[in-house]
């Protein structure tokens, strides 16, 4: 389904929850609405579903304005954060609910439900009640119930928030492949960036009711268009006085700007370990944190503290050890502008090896 949203606004009393939101979604895409809690993501989703009325603006499905279409007639599948399964009905009756309402013949309902049970891997538990299921199973039932009436659009509100970490990862990839297989246009809300990056074809970052940026996860990571996006996606440290770093002295030309550095922009090594010695700084290891698959190293360079990762393949650093630090690039921003700056010394034609 092609979706177009124009100048959408929503107020809750004095609170401007959604501000002039514009976007369009191509059929078959899987979109992630990502942003901090209370940022208006769920309100956007609920307006698309018809559960909330926009105060101004238009929502178009297939080029038709649907603002006044009640939720019953929008043909949307919705998965709630806590699933909202009908707790007095069996799994079968839950999935069949939409079909019963549409008065499908009994045998077709049975066939469709069986198909969905198969698809969601729930065959054999159709006679159970929701309270007899695990979190993951309830989640699957909620999907099956939403998909049963063959909706044109699937909306998911924090679909994995209530599931424990390990099963969440499994469900994520399961959901992505399921949506690919069904080929349905889908939008899901999440505050977890890993989830959005892993699952979505495109991410929309929403903050304080406005869309900050829309694009593929890679684009958003690579070229964030606002400081908020840069900070929200990935790990980062924000620094002032970055002109003291080797190679970035030219940044003193923009005194009011700040620099954002991601751990993966920085390389750290024992003296002599790095190739581009001429571009690197000397620093002291301040702290080491074991992150399961790598070390998070905090290095003091002059007055600045930088964070970076170090793989477990390399020799373990010690606190207080003197190390070489190479900053590949920084992301600079001020009130008017933002840009990425590569370390110019990396282009040094004659690197000096110690």
């Amino acid at each position, binding site marked *: 389904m092609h979706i177009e949203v124009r100048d959408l606004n929503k107020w809750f009393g004095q609170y401007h929850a959604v501000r002039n939101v514009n976007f369009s979604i191509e059929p078959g895409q899987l979109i992630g609405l990502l942003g901090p809690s209370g940022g208006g993501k769920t309100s956007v989703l609920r307006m698309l579903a018809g*559960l909330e009325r926009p105060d101004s603006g238009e929502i178009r499905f297939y080029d038709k304005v649907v603002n006044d279409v009640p939720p*019953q007639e929008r043909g*949307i599948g*919705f998965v*709630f954060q806590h699933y*909202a399964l*009908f707790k007095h009905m069996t799994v079968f009756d839950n999935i069949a609910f939409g079909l019963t*309402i549409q008065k499908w013949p009994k045998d077709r309902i049975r066939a469709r439900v069986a198909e969905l049970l198969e698809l969601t891997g729930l065959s054999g538990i159709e006679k159970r009640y929701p*309270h007899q299921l695990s979190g993951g199973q309830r989640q699957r039932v909620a999907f099956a119930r*939403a998909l049963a009436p063959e909706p044109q659009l699937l909306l998911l509100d924090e679909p994995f928030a209530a599931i424990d970490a390990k099963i969440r990862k499994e469900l994520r990839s399961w959901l992505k492949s399921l949506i690919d297989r069904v080929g349905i246009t889908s939008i899901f809300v999440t505050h977890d960036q890993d989830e959005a990056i892993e699952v979505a074809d495109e991410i929309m970052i929403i903050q304080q009711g406005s869309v900050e940026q829309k694009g593929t996860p890679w684009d958003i990571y690579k070229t964030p268009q606002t400081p908020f996006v840069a900070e929200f996606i990935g790990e980062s440290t924000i620094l002032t006085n970055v002109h003291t770093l080797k190679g970035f002295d030219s940044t003193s030309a923009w005194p009011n700007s700040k620099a954002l550095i991601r751990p993966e922009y920085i390389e750290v090594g024992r003296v002599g370990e790095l190739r581009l010695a001429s571009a690197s700084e000397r620093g002291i290891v301040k702290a080491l944190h074991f992150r399961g698959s790598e070390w998070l190293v905090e290095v003091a360079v002059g007055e600045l503290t930088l964070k970076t990762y170090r793989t477990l393949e390399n020799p373990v650093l010690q606190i207080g050890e003197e190390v070489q630090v190479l900053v590949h690039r920084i992301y600079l921003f001020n009130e008017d502008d933002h840009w990425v700056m590569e370390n110019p010394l990396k282009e040094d034609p004659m690197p000096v090896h110690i």
Partner: protein
Amino acid sequence: MTSRPPRISRTGKSLIGFTYMLFIVLLLVPLLQIVFGAGKQGMGSFTQSLLRPEALHAMWMTFSVVVVVTLLNTFFGILTAIVIVRGDWLGRRVRQLMNSIIDLPFAVSPVIGGFMIVLLLGPHTVLGAFLAKVGMPVVYAFPGMVLATLFVTFPLMVREVVPVLQEIGTQQEEAASLLGAYSWTTFWKVTWPSIRWGVTYGVVLTIARSLGEFGAVLVVSGNIINKTQTMTTLVYQDVDNFNIAAANSVSLVLAVGSVTLLLLMEWAKKRKGVQADAH
């Protein structure tokens, strides 16, 4: 899991004993007294006093009031609860105010409640006179008795349904609407199964309360024999006339009703609990 019975101190024991004694003196002895009192007169006198025309009429009156009040209270109670919990169109303040006013009958003495109805709809008021003229007198007639009992029982249903509605939340209903169900279908297929045991409990409470209501009904009905007399007001009159044996027989019938309701209440409470656990 093994659980050891908790140690109880001497004061604790005596307090528990005192509670049992109070229970026996206040509840069990009077009940037994009624049973034995009715038995002592013998079966003949018992049936005879129940078969008096005024007793039969009073039983019919009580039965009618209970049925009509329970039906009305169930309907309006559920409706009010839904408005209080889900009525977004009313504004939060108004609903909060409604929610507090619902408890008014708990705070006001039933006699005063009945008296308010007399003041409002009595034969000497404009409204009362008009209604009497069109052939539907309210006070000293059946409609007034229903109104008075309704006033007394109104909070019972609302107070049972409101917390259940609050607890189940709106998401199941929203899910139903997105699956194509309009409000009526949503109510019957999604909301009703969740609230039905709360409603059942509310119905039992309403029956119990309207069966035993005395003050409000006494004021509004005028206690007219063979016309507006109910079982409770008949007992009152029998006692007043020193017809203790007759009062005893009618009381026994009421007591049997109460015990039955008590058992029903236990059962409804259990079902309510089972459903609450099954989340």
